[in-house]
């Protein structure tokens, strides 16, 4: 490869190529590869899905079908902070829906949406396994428990 081309290579692409090479010929590789690709890119752009299809010799329609089936996979870029509001049963009966409504109003986005300033992506999740602290939400890896509508604004303000 010429030097000029070398410079043009995106390190993410190199990483993806490594992942694909590592999984070549292995059964059941698609989902772990998608997970790794999402770690690399932050989401799953269409070109990445096409590359994965070629690399694993899987029709791209199937790759897309899998990527749109599982809640973990994102086909659009995420905001800087991912806010997951738990609507598990415990949180629901302890007022999780009201917390969610407040957040939706505060951010102006619904489930799956990203704020215009790219600050937050809002996701509704079914249970984060912290039922003892209901109602709860997670921002990135931090769990916030025993929430109430009036506590929301203060927490959100801590995130750039």
């Amino acid at each position: 490869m010429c030097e000029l081309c070398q410079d043009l290579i995106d390190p993410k692409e190199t990483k993806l190529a490594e992942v694909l090479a590592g999984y070549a010929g292995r059964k059941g590789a698609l989902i772990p590869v998608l997970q790794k690709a999402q770690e690399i890119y932050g989401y799953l752009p269409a070109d990445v899905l096409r590359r994965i299809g070629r690399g694993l010799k899987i029709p791209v329609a199937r790759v897309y079908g899998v990527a749109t089936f599982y809640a973990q996979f994102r086909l659009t870029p995420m905001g800087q902070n991912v806010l997951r509001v738990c609507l598990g049963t415990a949180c629901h009966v302890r007022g999780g829906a009201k917390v969610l409504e407040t957040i939706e109003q505060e951010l102006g986005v619904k489930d799956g949406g990203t704020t215009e300033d790219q600050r937050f992506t809002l996701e509704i999740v079914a249970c984060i396994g912290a039922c003892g602290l209901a109602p709860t939400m997670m921002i990135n890896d931090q769990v916030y428990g025993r929430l109430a509508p009036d506590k929301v604004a203060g927490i959100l303000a801590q995130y750039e």
Partner: protein
Amino acid sequence: MEWLTLTIDGRTVSVPKGTTVLQACRMNNIPIPTLCHDPELTATGSCRLCIVDIEGMRNLPPSCVTQATQGMVVRTQTEKVRDARKTILELLVANHPLDCMTCQKMGSCDLAKYAYEYQVTGEAFAGGERRHLPIDDSNPFILRDPNKCILCGKCIRACEEVQGRGVLDFSHRGFNTQVGPAFDLPYAESECVFCGSCVSVCPVGALTEKQMAGQGRPWEVKKVQTTCPFCGTGCNFDLNVKDGKVIGVTSNPEAPVNGRALCVKGRFGMDMIHSPNRLTTPLIKKDGEFVEASWDEALSLVAEKLGEIKAQYGADSIAALSSARCTNEENYLMQKFMRAVIGSNNVDHCART
């Protein structure tokens, strides 16, 4: 072969081991409605319309994926079964346009057939959410209306299992499930090669032959099985004829070589027959220009010229090219014409292209 005896709707029937309940019913002319079932494709048991009542089984199992067993007692038309089928049809119709009047599939739509039989009105669950997806009109061959799709998945399986392509798959999930090429793109932007296998298995109006739109209703069309002229494979299909005109091609499952599979040329290239470029009258070149002629005039001239040249230069001064596109009978006649009528072995055809 081991045979099993079972009772279906009070009738005792015998079927070979390995037969499904659906097959057992169909072998014995017991009607069972199906939408996702296709004998040539993997069974998925997803539409649930073929449910039956089987003694000893909880719930209503789908007959297409339930193996017949010795002594099984099956009921196909109980009130519970018919009510459940009706509800399933109501659910499908509640998310399906009711524009049957102008739908190309009218007359051969399985959903309409069963909805009629089960007296589904389209009023159940009215006012509920419906899909509003863009219609794919991106190509000259296939019209795809995803709003009419009932998600039976036959097109996906045909694309994968028959054509080995996998252009189509399910995407998203639950109520938002769709069928289509990757990224929900139109066919023209996908890797589709327009073999039309998907169209041939679609039970509703979601996938239709674009060229046939508005050209004829199933009951007006005469189907003529014939052999495709577009390569050496020898696929068979049905020419659909209305008012002396070929309006399109449909698969014929009986086709010995290809079954329902075809390629883009065989399925969608037959508008060639009525091309405005077709020659419809003999032509004779006069002063460098073609002039229309009668058959008598043209054939007389040919006979006269060939006769003269044979007389003057001998039979071997005349040659013929026969055709790998013509029938055996015509090829036979052409070589006989050269050998017996002209008297030369100067006959060949472009055997190699």
